[in-house]
């Protein structure tokens, strides 16, 4: 499934995760899920730490291949969140 264009997004800080099928904490819209195409700098997940929702952005335009974590999970810095494929 993975090819040379695939890349990973990992947690950048410890905290409580919100990811698909969870909702955007401010806009209350659905966060992108497997198969969705995300734009550069689009929010793909949020990590709440110190009562602050920290946005995790996609670095480039990509298709989400796999999500490795669930909403409500306490993640540590470096935990794998999702695998994407550059499009």
């Amino acid at each position, binding site marked *: 499934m993975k090819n040379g264009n695939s890349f990973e997004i990992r947690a*950048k800080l410890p905290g409580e995760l919100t990811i698909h099928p969870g909702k955007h904490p401010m806009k209350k819209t659905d966060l992108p899920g497997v198969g969705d195409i995300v734009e550069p700098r689009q929010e793909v997940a949020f990590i709440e730490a*110190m009562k602050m929702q*920290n946005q995790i*952005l996609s670095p480039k335009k990509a298709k989400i291949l796999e999500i490795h974590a669930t909403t409500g999970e306490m993640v540590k*810095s470096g935990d794998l969140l999702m695998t994407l494929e550059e499009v």
Partner: protein
Amino acid sequence: MSLFLETLVSVLASGGLLNLTIGNIIMIGVAIVLLYLAISKGFEPLLLLPIAFGCLLANIPGAGISDEGGLLYYFYTYGLETEILPCLIFMGIGAMTDFGPLLARPVTFLLGAAAQFGVFFAMFLASALGFNIREAASIAIIGGADGPTAIYLTVKLAPHLLGAVAVAAYSYMSLVPLIQPPVIRLLTTQKERETVMEDPKPVSQTTKILFPIVTAIVACLLLPDTTPLVGCLMLGNLLRESGVTDRLFKTAQGEMINIVTILLTLAVGGTMGADTFLTVATLKILALGAIAFAVSTAGGVLLGKVFYVLSGGKINPIIGAAGVSAVPMAARVCQVEGQKANPENFLLMHAMGPNVAGVIGTAVAAGCFLTLLG
């Protein structure tokens, strides 16, 4: 009928309405503005709301709520003058604080110290503006952005300034996101702000347990005047980290600090009577507080820049701004500013190191003032 009118007149005359002074009316207005900021704008509502309400009650003529025998008088006399309440707050803060990020990168302790620069700078400025040295120290400590410490020091050195100092300290904490970013941007380059920091090594539980014990011994031996504040802070932290006092930890960081906050903030609000608050000195204090705050931020960021160079570009200088205490608002500002420069930048936890160091730094600065001036 005439009896009714006479009764009505005598009730009105003895009531508060006819005895309201212009000062009372202005102060009730100030209280309403503070209530508005707390409720509608979310400015530190847990602190500003009860302070504002205490201020409102203190300006009702005839109620005497802050005069000898009044409710808020007792809160002040038994809670603040004795210094019990600020110290209990510090115990709660200790219980709420994870010193892990500081222990993971101990060098950030120095950023918390550098950010006390504004405190000393503001003290000289306040002296130059005509405040005596004890008043100047109480005003300057606002730059540490630590409410309980500011209250603790002011009650000891210049109790007549308590209302103004506390209001400035607490309102500037809510203004952290406005005061700090321009200072950060002025002093750093885009390249410096983009710096992504590596995760530090994890900290062992033994280190976390030893830290409050060792800090209490060292800091209190060096500066015995700081023992009540630092001692309570470290006890609260040991309750958290020891792993064997879970019930006490939960109470200290929950119900205890909440109850104490209500008593402390009402007592502070009660000191905001028109005669003590509506003075030119209050305006000077508000201005000096803002300067102290900005200079403290600058002090932290400038040392952050030194660290940036010394570490070969591995430490983002923005995190120096978190050296003013204001936990965790200042750390959040660092996160926002870092991510503006580079969306891949997550400085929040890195900034918590200097941020919690700032709490200790401000308490130590207060201890220095008490040793020199107390």
